């Protein structure tokens, strides 16, 4: 007689109530508390606690909250409701927009080239583990410094102008893309790499015949995502570091001329550009796949 048959014949007398967990009210508990459930609850609880603590300790400088909110609402109505240009012309705004896009594109290209070689040096499946750890730590450091600080640092170290903006943006892009590319490379089928090295292919042959073809679509997707991020960051650093482009126009309209309607017009230009860029990126990504 097989074991299974014995088990089937064995008398079953399970007292189900013994195994059911019940709440204090006598209801049957349907969800068991797993380790991940506890971790989630704990995280949510701590975040909520920090939020409440934050709100209690912030220095609000006795601001009249209701008044500020209502005046912001009416300002927003002017900003979005009646845009027009006074200090800029439309061609001027569009050329500034193109400058900002160019800053983003240049830093994405530089970042992607640096990141490609950086990722080859730190992807777990092809790189030397010691070199990989050194590069990964350096990249974590670079990514932790906000882009605006890189730009400000380069402004003093390399002088004002596009060089500082591009260098600052490139630092952060390279850091971000090295991590993303390395993860794409790590997903490449190990069999392909092994097969190529078995037939005596060199490192670069493996890279260009196995790794690049199979991780290309992922890498392109990440690169375009970074292009979008770099474009919006270029707007922000234009405003905060005076790096030129449409961001600087935004800053001038808002903090120099105090002209909400001008600010509104430039905002619409920027939003249209961001949406267009996103649509274009989606189409190019679809074409590659």
């Amino acid at each position: 007689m097989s074991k299974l048959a014995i088990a089937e014949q064995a008398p079953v007398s399970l007292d189900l109530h013994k195994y059911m967990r019940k709440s204090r009210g006598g209801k049957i508990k349907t969800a068991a508390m797993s380790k991940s459930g506890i971790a989630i609850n704990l995280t949510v609880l701590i975040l909520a606690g920090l939020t409440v603590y934050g709100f209690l300790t912030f220095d609000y400088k006795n601001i009249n909250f209701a008044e500020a909110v209502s005046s912001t609402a009416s300002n927003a109505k002017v900003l979005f409701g009646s845009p027009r240009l006074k200090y800029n012309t439309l061609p001027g705004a569009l050329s500034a927009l193109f400058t900002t896009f160019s800053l983003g594109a240049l830093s994405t290209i530089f970042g992607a080239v640096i990141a490609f070689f950086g990722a080859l040096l730190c992807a777990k499946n092809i790189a030397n583990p010691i070199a990989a750890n050194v590069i990964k730590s350096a990249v974590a450091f670079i990514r932790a410094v906000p882009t605006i600080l890189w730009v400000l640092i380069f402004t003093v170290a390399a002088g004002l102008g596009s060089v500082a903006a591009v260098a600052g943006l490139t630092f952060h892009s390279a850091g971000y893309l090295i991590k993303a590319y390395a993860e794409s490379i790590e997903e490449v089928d190990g069999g392909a790499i092994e097969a190529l090295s078995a037939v005596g292919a060199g490192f670069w042959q493996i890279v260009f015949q196995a790794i690049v073809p199979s991780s290309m679509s992922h890498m392109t997707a990440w690169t375009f995502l970074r292009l979008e991020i770099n474009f919006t960051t270029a707007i922000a650093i234009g405003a905060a570091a005076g790096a030129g482009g449409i961001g600087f126009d935004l800053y001038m309209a808002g903090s120099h001329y105090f002209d909400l309607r001008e600010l509104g017009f430039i905002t619409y230009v920027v939003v249209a550009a961001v949406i267009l860029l996103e649509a274009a990126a989606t189409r190019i990504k679809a074409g590659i796949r």
Partner: protein
Amino acid sequence: MSGEYMEEAARPQNQTSVFVKRKRTFTLASLGVMAVFAISSAVTHYDVIGGFESVPAAIIWIAKNLVPDGRALSRLPNILRKLTETALVSVAVTVCAGICAFFFSLPGTRTTKTKPQIARAVRVVAALFRNVPDVVWAMLLLFSFGQNILTGFFALFFATFGMLTRTFIETIDEVCDACVEALYATGATYLQTVFQGIVPCSMPEIVSWVLYMIETNIRNSTLIGVLTATGIGAMFDLYYKRMDYGSASMVVISIVILVIAIEIISNQIRKVIM
């Protein structure tokens, strides 16, 4: 001879080989990138050689000047106070925006089967909040709130809200489809579906995204801080403009330590919950 013949036979005449195709795509793509590069550097007056030269020069400058000194050490308590404030703002912003975005994203999901017009309206509003740069929000709020902690708070809030709404819509559609359908089949009401179905099954993803946004918001709040003269960003800007590079470097180092610490903690939490 026979090998060549075999290869010809295996491939239909009118189809180009995958290698030729790959080479063609690669050539086209590199030409495109080069064209973008050339146009971009012309538009921005980017000096390519100067750009390459500037990096080593800048690194030497950083190594010489951006080193914390005695004065920086005496400013550490002040810096840490501002840093704590920035960290708390980031957490508070992300949590509040996360809660709002969750409830706002519900009608935008396929899963909850709202009217398509409402779902589309939700997506458009989310896209608006996401695509209006946080710089614009900061400028707008600066008019009424002035140099207040709430200026940065709301500027980050709007941007985070837009970003998280879109992410949550995608996450809920991806993760909760089956379990929501099961709940509907049992006759559960809308609220029951939300709290017994969507909340539990999307919670790990949501927490993971919130942690990611906290990290991002610390970096973004530095930028908003430079712009609106509040928080740790303003502190860096102040020291930097006074050419007190020692203290400025102390600010940078403290931000780096905070961001890396949050990244490590988030990764640990993600490992357990995902």
